């Protein structure tokens, strides 16, 4: 059966792809690796430092705090956006012009650039001219995102929910549309309650889109930078300083190339690891349900 033609010139066809990947991923990543294990003092003065930068990053208490905030932030927005997105998808109109209209309305926040979102909310929450800030103050609520860490947190979460829940809702909407009508009819005949229809028909059929939604939202939120930076600048104090902002301060503000390179690599590995663990766990769970390999 082995009648494959051997021709080493085939490598020429692979070469363009290799060059592309090298420039887009491997070389930039290797420069970061390069910096992370050296102390570069000048063009001709560099010293090998081994794992020194990595150790100092892992022992940095400010970064540990930022990491904890980051985890808390990602978990919070997932806990809100996933159920809310499912809920919105369930009540969206199913057909006709209303469906298109709602779909367009709901996707509008997704089209707004990160910096603009931050600016919009910055103005929105201002006590003097912002509708929300002014309104809350008029109601007698002491709301100030520059002084009160709780207010800053709540506002950032609200902003992210407003900006990104539509993505989850859209994914769920498409998942719901793909459920054949017969399932709903059979459920009616079986006298299933609305809850049972959701629990045993809609939710199982949404599993795949929800995996995508959770992965996307986790990766996105774990890297969040522009919106909180514009809105609160990481404050008050460092109460809303997330990992990306810490990294930017370190790399650009302080020009600490070695530590920030080590930081970048750890950051990247954490995202990769969490996504991989989540994905394989879900896939494994589905495999368990499917011990005989049938589709």
């Amino acid at each position, binding site marked *: 059966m082995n009648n494959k033609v051997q021709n080493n010139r085939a490598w020429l066809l692979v070469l363009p792809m290799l060059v592309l990947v090298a420039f887009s991923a491997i070389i930039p990543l290797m420069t970061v690796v390069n910096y992370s294990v050296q102390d570069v003092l000048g063009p001709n003065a560099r010293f090998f430092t081994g794992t020194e930068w990595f150790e100092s990053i892992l022992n940095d208490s400010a970064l540990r705090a930022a990491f904890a905030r980051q985890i808390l932030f990602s978990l919070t927005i997932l806990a809100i956006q996933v159920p809310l997105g499912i809920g919105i998808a369930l009540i969206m109109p199913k057909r006709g012009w209303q469906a298109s209209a709602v779909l367009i309305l709901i996707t509008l926040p997704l089209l707004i650039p990160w910096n603009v979102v931050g600016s919009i909310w910055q103005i929105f929450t201002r006590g003097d001219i912002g509708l929300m800030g002014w309104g809350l103050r008029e109601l007698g609520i002491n709301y100030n995102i520059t002084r009160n860490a709780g207010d800053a947190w709540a506002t950032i979460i609200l902003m992210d929910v407003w900006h990104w829940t539509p993505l989850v809702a859209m994914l769920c909407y498409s998942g719901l549309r793909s459920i*054949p009508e017969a399932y709903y*009819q*059979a459920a009616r005949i*079986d006298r299933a309650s609305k809850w049972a229809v959701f629990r045993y028909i809609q939710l*199982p059929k949404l599993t795949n889109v929800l995996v995508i939604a959770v992965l996307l939202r986790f990766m996105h939120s774990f890297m969040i930078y522009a919106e909180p930076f514009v809105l609160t600048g990481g404050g008050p104090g460092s109460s809303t300083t997330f990992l990306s902002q810490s990294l930017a301060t370190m790399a650009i503000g302080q020009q600490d190339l070695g530590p920030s390179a080590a930081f970048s690599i750890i950051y990247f590995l954490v995202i990769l690891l969490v996504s991989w663990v989540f994905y394989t766990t879900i896939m494994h769970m589905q495999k368990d349900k499917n011990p005989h390999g049938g589709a």
Partner: protein
Amino acid sequence: MAEITLKGLAHSYSKTPASHGDYAIRQMDHVWHQGGAYALLGPSGCGKSTLLNIISGLLEPSEGDVLFDGQRVNELPPEERNIAQVFQFPVIYDTMTVYDNLAFPLRNMNTPEYRLDTKVREVADILELTPLLSRKAKNLTADEKQKVSMGRGLVRDDVSAILFDEPLTVIDPQLKWKLRRKLKEIHERFNITMIYVTHDQLEASTFADKIAVMYDGQVVQFGTPRELFEKPAHTFVGYFIGSPGMNFMEVSHQAGSVMFGDQPLPVESAITRHVASASSSNIKLGIRPEFIVVSDTPSRNALPIQIVTLQDLGTYSLLSFTLAGQLFKARLPEGHAPLGSNAFAEFPIQHISLYIDEYLVETGYE
């Protein structure tokens, strides 16, 4: 257990139906007796699924009444009609085991667990699902899934009827007969009214005692498979039932004989009388391909024909020929003498039936 009566039933998907064409189901009366095994047979788009959904309550008819044992149920939703329906594609609850799937309708009715368990095991036993009870329903084959969705209908007490909407579409051919036999078995055991929608005449006639043939939103004939074959009440039934379907000739009356083109046809005198007195010009004579006698020697009533093709189909041969410019099909028994270039066909008069305006006219002979 119920007798299902359709009274003056009609359905249109448009809100303001103006003409015939707006109706998916044209006005009809029909009775499905308790305990019968019925098939609803017709081509795609003839309204059979619409009719089924009206019976199960998934659709509310725009006109007329649906009666269960004389009780009007038009407004009752499917969950209150106590009906079971099996769909074209198996509907199962993926995340549940087979057991939980079967128990699902009972749990929704808050059946006590001990009664539920007996019932589920009984139904699983009949459907040969017992070894699969603890398996996830998702991993089953298509025919097993279809049995599970049928089982969900059977577990309930006193199911009025089980409706099947082309349930064997996705089943492997070699398993179809097995499942069909199972259906028969269940019907005999539970004495439940069953209505089986299909476009396959073989499926319909092996399953049902009586078949309702639907065409263009109407039931054009309701009868046993044999009646449909021997006495099609409508030209569509003649054409749809049988393989190949009935041959039809448009005929007219001329000087005391029945003319097919310019060819006088020998027919029963009763038919000649009816053709002569018919007010419509839509007059057709039908004959089944099985009854046409073909030979290569002329005889008194035989007409000369032009042979087009002769296909050997194993147990019989299928002859296509033209007569007066029209194509006919005839079924010749195995081992029929070979035909030369001159062939003659005879239409035995006792097998010719008359259709005026597409409907059969009983001409009185037997």
